């Protein structure tokens, strides 16, 4: 019996395509963010509130992943910016190849910001690099505040935590202080924004975060 060392990534094919995408975003000065949450946390609502705030002519596009239906892309295309659905047909996450294919007929020259809304799932999307500059995890106060402890992988890998639906705090037993502590126990120093897509609370800070992050991308170009 012989043992042959391999030292290769299991997802080397995905990682190869993700590296190609990252290089391409870098060349075009595009900030790409990958938003990940459970189903129903409010990813699409956040994108609606985000796109409606952008002035006409803002160089932004959205890719949205779901197992079935193009409902989200239809919701998001009302704002006049490019929005495309990636329907995975059963797969619980987006991968780099699907993103690359979806981008094939868009001109990256016309973009400064690409927002990817992943399939609603806190586990599987954490394993797949899409070439993004930052993963963003969203948790709504209608869920459990211990989600960072239950799903440490995605909280450890995400640059920013968005706590959504904070307008519901008076009506739910969610301990937001504890949620913040849990998140930072998994990811020390994690950036956290408290947001309500219903009242608009925190949306200015979210747009500022995108602007700050976008500047970081263009300055290291």
């Amino acid at each position, binding site marked *: *019996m*012989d*043992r*042959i*060392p*391999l*030292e*290769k*990534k*299991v*997802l*080397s*094919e*995905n990682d190869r395509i993700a590296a190609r995408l990252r290089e391409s975003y870098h060349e075009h000065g595009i900030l790409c963010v990958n938003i990940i949450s459970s189903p129903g946390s409010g990813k699409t609502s956040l994108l609606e509130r985000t796109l409606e705030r952008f002035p006409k002519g803002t160089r932004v596009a959205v890719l949205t992943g779901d197992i079935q239906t193009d409902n989200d892309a239809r919701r998001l295309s009302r704002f006049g910016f490019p929005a495309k659905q990636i329907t995975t047909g059963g*797969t*619980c*996450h987006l991968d780099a190849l699907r993103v690359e294919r979806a981008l094939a007929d868009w001109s990256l020259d016309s973009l400064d910001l690409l927002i990817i809304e992943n399939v609603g799932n806190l*586990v*599987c*999307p*954490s*394993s797949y690099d899409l070439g993004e500059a930052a993963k963003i995890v969203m948790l709504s106060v209608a869920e459990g505040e211990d989600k960072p*402890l239950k799903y*440490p*992988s*995605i909280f*450890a*890998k995400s640059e920013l935590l968005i706590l959504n639906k904070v307008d519901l705090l008076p009506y739910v037993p969610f301990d937001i202080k504890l949620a913040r502590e849990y998140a930072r*126990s*998994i*990811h*020390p*120093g994690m950036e956290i924004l408290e947001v309500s897509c219903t009242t608009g609370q925190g949306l200015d800070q979210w747009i500022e975060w995108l602007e700050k992050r976008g500047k970081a991308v263009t300055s290291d170009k």
Partner: protein
Amino acid sequence: MHELSIADSILDSVRQEAQKHPGAHVTKVGVRIGALSGVEPEALSFGFSALVKGSDLEPLALEIEAVPRRQRCPACDITFTVTEDNLACPRCANGETLLAGGEELDLAYLEVED
């Protein structure tokens, strides 16, 4: 549950590597799974067995090495293994440590017989 597609990627790599060793029979593949990889070892083993059964690679064993999370303390410049979810630096107790490992999803080795 994406372990089935991860298992499929492992089998693809085994086939690719096996082509480099004509005549050899691959009996085992070793993988390293980090605590933050997002992959559940038990589900991976289950998916792997299901895919191998009846395939050209049967019988093929899977050995999983679980790799713990590591953090780095920027103040002390040391990297340490995380035990019991405690991310504080063991030397200076600084809580603001940085992720330094545990995301592995690697193919480690193949065992072959001639």
